[in-house]
């Protein structure tokens, strides 16, 4: 893997390189550490080890242990430290090792990070990007497969990104870190090894824009993170049966691209939203409500939700039974077409 990163490296002047998502994030961090000497990368095991997913591999060696460093094992202090660093002029990019271990830091994230700019009437901005390996799909231990996007999106003062491929992973991270607002950047860990061409040093689309991954006429599949890939698989299968599905990658979970959603669904008149998080009060409800609010007269059927069940994220063999399957999405498509 180091080797692959070096391959990308030698292509430094080439605008497009093929990278895995994990390499694309690594590359974005390197570019950010290079372009802005205020950027700091820290967290549990991100320094010497280079992160449990090697996302920060080589960064400490390249930028030194003042810019890229390990912390003790305490998530709340990691985020609290980020607040203090931001108040001292730094641009912190902390990592919390896994989704489920963001919970011990939620107080600092919600009550401090998300509010400090507001509380100080703009005097103390929080240009913090929390990198959070997220979502399931790798049959990991408990607390290593959680989807916290609804909580973050519900928190005023936070922005939330969730890329689905290496190119977006790269550009969304640039945007997140360059932004003076706090961003929770959710990395779909099951897609870390997915490879795609990445356009380097390009600004990318503005914060809050979604992306039509595949256009279609009969219904819109809406997803983010690893579920985008699943929806593309579904669309390919459906196409064999003559069903032409649009796939919309939300990418930004806050702000949500309501206009992009409306543009797609007012054309297709049918929508299915797919996510890994449990159903009740998941972000799918917000997406469905936004679509319904904006496309009420156009909708031919209620927006369908295909999500994780309202159960704690399960262990190994049960994981494929919990996550939205291709069949479940296809059945939802069928339901909306036949409504």
């Amino acid at each position, binding site marked *: 893997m180091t080797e692959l990163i070096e391959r990308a490296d030698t292509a430094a002047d080439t605008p497009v390189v093929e990278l895995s998502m994990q390499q694309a994030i690594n590359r974005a961090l390197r570019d950010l550490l290079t372009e802005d000497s205020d950027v700091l990368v820290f967290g549990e095991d991100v320094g010497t080890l280079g992160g449990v997913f090697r996302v920060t591999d080589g960064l400490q060696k390249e930028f030194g242990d003042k810019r890229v460093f390990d912390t003790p094992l305490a998530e709340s202090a990691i985020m609290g430290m980020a607040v203090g660093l931001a108040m001292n002029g730094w641009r912190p990019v902390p990592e919390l090792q896994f989704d489920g271990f963001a919970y011990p830091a939620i107080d600092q994230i919600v009550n401090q990070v998300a509010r400090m*700019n507001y509380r100080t009437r703009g005097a103390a901005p929080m240009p913090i990007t929390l990198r959070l390996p997220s979502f399931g799909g790798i049959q990991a231990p408990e607390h290593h497969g959680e989807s916290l996007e609804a909580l973050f999106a519900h928190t005023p003062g936070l922005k939330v990104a969730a890329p689905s491929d290496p190119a977006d992973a790269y550009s969304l991270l640039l945007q997140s870190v360059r932004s003076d607002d706090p961003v929770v950047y959710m990395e779909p860990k099951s897609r870390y090894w997915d490879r795609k061409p990445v356009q380097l040093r390009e600004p990318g689309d503005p*914060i809050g824009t979604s992306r039509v991954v595949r256009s279609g006429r009969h219904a819109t599949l809406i997803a983010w993170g690893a579920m985008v890939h699943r929806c593309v698989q579904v669309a390919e299968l459906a196409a064999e049966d003559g069903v032409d599905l649009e796939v919309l990658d939300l990418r930004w979970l806050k702000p949500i691209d*309501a206009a992009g959603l409306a543009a797609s669904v007012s054309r297709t008149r049918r929508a299915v939203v797919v996510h890994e998080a449990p159903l009740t009060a998941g972000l799918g409800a917000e997406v469905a409500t936004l679509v319904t609010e904006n496309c009420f007269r156009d909708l031919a059927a209620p927006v369908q939700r295909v999500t994780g069940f309202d159960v704690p994220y399960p262990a190994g063999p049960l994981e494929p039974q919990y996550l939205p399957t291709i069949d479940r999405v296809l059945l939802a498509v069928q339901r909306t077409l036949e409504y």
Partner: protein
Amino acid sequence: MPTHESAGRGAITVDHLPPDLTRALYRDMRTARDLDTEAIALQRQGVFPAYVSVRGQEAAQVASASALDPARDFVFPTYREMASALAYGVEMVGYMATHRALWHGGLYDVMASRFGAVNAVVGGPVPHAVGWAVGERLRGDDGVALAYFGDGASSEGDVHEAMNFAGVFGAPVVFFCQNNQWALSVPNERQVAGGSVRARAEGYGMPGVLVDGNDAGAVYEATAEAVARARRGEGPSVVEALTYRVEPHSTSDDPGRYRDDAEAARWRDRDPVRLLREALLAAGHADEAHLAEVDARAAREAERVRDGVATAPEPDGSDLFTHVFRETTEELTRQRRTWQEEVEL
């Protein structure tokens, strides 16, 4: 219980301290006392929805804040550091605005004051001080962060995590615990296992000192030493100032339900403002005429702040939306429009 209680100890001395320093401490403590009195009155008049008094803690607050350099240090307060703010030079009308509930964090400029926003999460700001201090060292600067927290706050996980981080990173931070012996209705005995916050310091490999929190000179010296140590790059320390919350927890509280006023009365008797006044006279650092003049000026300053905060304009409703983000979103702009159309009218 902390080992050396101050209550019975009688007089304090400031003979060994610079006269102008001790006069400045007195001035700020006197002003804070008067402003506290005004604030309690404002609450009774309904101008403040509630107020948390600092009475009896003026020495702990003013003397610790005075040991810092407001040009390069940074203070991370809780919700009960009015006297610290005053001594540190914070614009006090803006500070008191938090008690009129005009804006939760206060209306002073946090970055210009180098005094963090009023923070109501017990323990929450302590890790911020560590982050700030780590950032200071990373840049090679010599500022020191001081985190205020209470005896109750010492129970929170965040305070432990912060102390451990500070120790590991050798961060220039002073953990200043105002042990006023009560966390709302819970006394030290049922709050602080082992009886003292200072005693925790050793477990993190840092020095800890317990100081008479009603002795302004002692607090000043203990804090100055911790600050100097941090400034020299020798890392964090804990200062525990033993004092007493003589007033209710807040104006909404009724301490008669949980404590005997006799204890509070003993501590009211050991008034840090009066103690310092007497020590100044005893040391010959000031005479009655000077002090009368200071007292008069303090009263006027307290009135000025009182009038300022009482007449400060209420924030405009649009402020709801202004500072949520640095770069606002379309959705929030839409909501602001809804507010204009449906609420503002």
